[in-house]
């Protein structure tokens, strides 16, 4: 029975997610959509932070670049959504930015890695802010239209339909990332986290493993960014800002780095606080701060490990 527990859990979660829009109003369905998008973003960061041991404060670079590429194609070039072009463009843009940045940042580790990434992602923010003719500057790019899936009987303009579209994307991304971290390649990332020198001594080209992981992680972040652009119908420089990167980092740390699904829980917590608590008080950041500190002090491995442990205890007794 215990062996099947994870599958039962996943099935239960999926069914609940599918059923959710039937029980909550459009506002909460929209919020759930946002959570799923950020969950993918945070999980993609976990590949770097939790599995490879390289916490990043520049993950918004991939998320934001893809969002902008989609928005520019959508608003400036097609004057409408060409999903068949925008999807590969979003993937390519994130991969390209990662391929270039990776050449620079993967030579360093720890604080240096973080700072160089902050600087590079803020450079992209600067470009988005200044290149008014292309990006709309600080006004951003409004009017990003969602893909037309009318032939499937879906109207993505509707909150519920878009939610299911994002849910599909979330499920596929989660599955793919799960496969990646369980694969032999995923194991090499754990090895790198534990000891780079030993990995090299075993014959691994450590840099190349990191480079591939960096690009894979960026692609998922970029995909999430694309869904964010469709969700908001609007892209602004804040998508590239340090604050967006930091949000993802907090989601991963809060949920549990190196657990892959933990960061999704982190996304739930933070998006809910941000959107619900902020309705009551403008000081919602204080509440987030307190929750973050309490988690880091009482459950430094994150909420996910806490849940897992108590579930296991429950299964034993």
């Amino acid at each position, binding site marked *: 029975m215990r062996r099947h527990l994870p599958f039962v859990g996943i099935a239960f979660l999926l069914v609940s997610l599918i059923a959710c829009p039937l029980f909550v109003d459009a506002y909460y369905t929209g919020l759930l959509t946002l959570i799923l998008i950020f969950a993918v973003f945070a999980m993609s960061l976990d590949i770097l932070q939790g599995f490879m041991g390289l916490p990043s404060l520049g993950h918004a670079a991939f998320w934001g670049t893809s969002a902008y590429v989609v928005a520019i194609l959508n608003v400036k070039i097609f004057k409408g959504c060409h999903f068949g072009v925008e999807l590969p463009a979003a993937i390519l843009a994130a991969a390209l930015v990662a391929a270039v940045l990776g050449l620079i940042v993967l030579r360093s580790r720890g604080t240096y890695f973080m700072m160089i990434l902050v600087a590079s992602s803020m450079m992209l923010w600067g470009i988005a802010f200044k290149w008014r003719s292309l990006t709309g500057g600080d006004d951003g790019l409004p009017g990003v239209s969602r893909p037309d899936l009318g032939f499937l009987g879906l109207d993505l303009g509707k909150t519920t339909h878009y939610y299911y579209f994002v849910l599909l994307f979330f499920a596929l991304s989660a599955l*793919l990332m799960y*496969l*990646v971290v*369980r*694969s*032999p*390649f*995923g*194991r*090499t990332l*754990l*090895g790198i986290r*534990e*000891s780079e*020198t*030993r*990995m*090299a*001594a*075993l*014959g*691994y*080209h*450590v840099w190349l*493993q990191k480079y*591939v992981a960096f690009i*894979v992680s960026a692609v998922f972040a970029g995909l999430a960014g694309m869904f964010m652009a469709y969700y908001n119908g609007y892209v602004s420089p804040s998508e590239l800002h340090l604050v967006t990167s930091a949000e993802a980092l907090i989601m991963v740390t809060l949920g549990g780095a190196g657990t892959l699904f933990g960061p999704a829980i982190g996304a739930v917590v933070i998006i809910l606080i941000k959107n619900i608590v902020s309705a009551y008080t403008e000081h919602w950041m204080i509440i987030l701060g307190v929750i973050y500190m309490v988690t880091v002090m009482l459950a430094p491995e994150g909420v996910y490990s806490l849940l897992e442990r108590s579930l296991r205890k429950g299964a034993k007794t």
Partner: protein
Amino acid sequence: MPLLSVQNLSKHFGGLHAVEDVSFNVEPGERLAIIGPNGAGKTTLFELLSGTLLPSRGRIHAFGKEITTWAAHRRVSLGIGRTFQITNLFFNLTVLDNLLLALGTEGAVRFDLLRPMSSYHRLYEKGREILNRWNLWERRNVPVRSLSYGEQRLLEITLTLSQDRPLLLLDEPTCGLSPDEAKNFVSMIRSFPRDITILLIDHDMDVVSEIAERIMVLHFGRVMALGPPEEVRRNPRVQEIYTGRGYEPA
């Protein structure tokens, strides 16, 4: 042709000459021990041979290729395996996962992003066979950080041996082992087939004399003596270092 050939190798850290003008050859199948007091440059020499450090001067040839400036992982692929003096393992992973990382270095495996590791039955079988041989199979699901120090040292060596590299650099493999464990280790090294060539750093003259055909004594980065154990033992300058008399920098 020697399997490993080192010519005039030097490594300077600022004014410190950690390794200075070291030259020697190692023939295929030979067991060469490197001894010397602390700070003699033994480990630095290994770092140069394994590619963790690049030399200030000199050249290294192995398996007929010049590898002086090769990256560490390329040297491993060429056939040079190493162990570490300070235990260097994947401490938060299980014993089996540690070994699977050592076994999965082939290109096709390391870049497989989608198949689960557990579907590599060939690697699992090999892993089981190796862990059984070293009495570690029972401990396969234990995180390495929870192993005893002796078990960690054993795994340290097992990871490297499992890869079947023809040239091994063993950096104080008996360091921290009990006399019994050390004895077991010596008999294990002696039982190795002759197609494996071994360079071994150790402090213990007895361990070294049992394993090695030749001993190289390093002192302040320089080769002070190189020859069969009896000859090195009789060398008056080596005796001086080891009895602590007449300590003079070269």
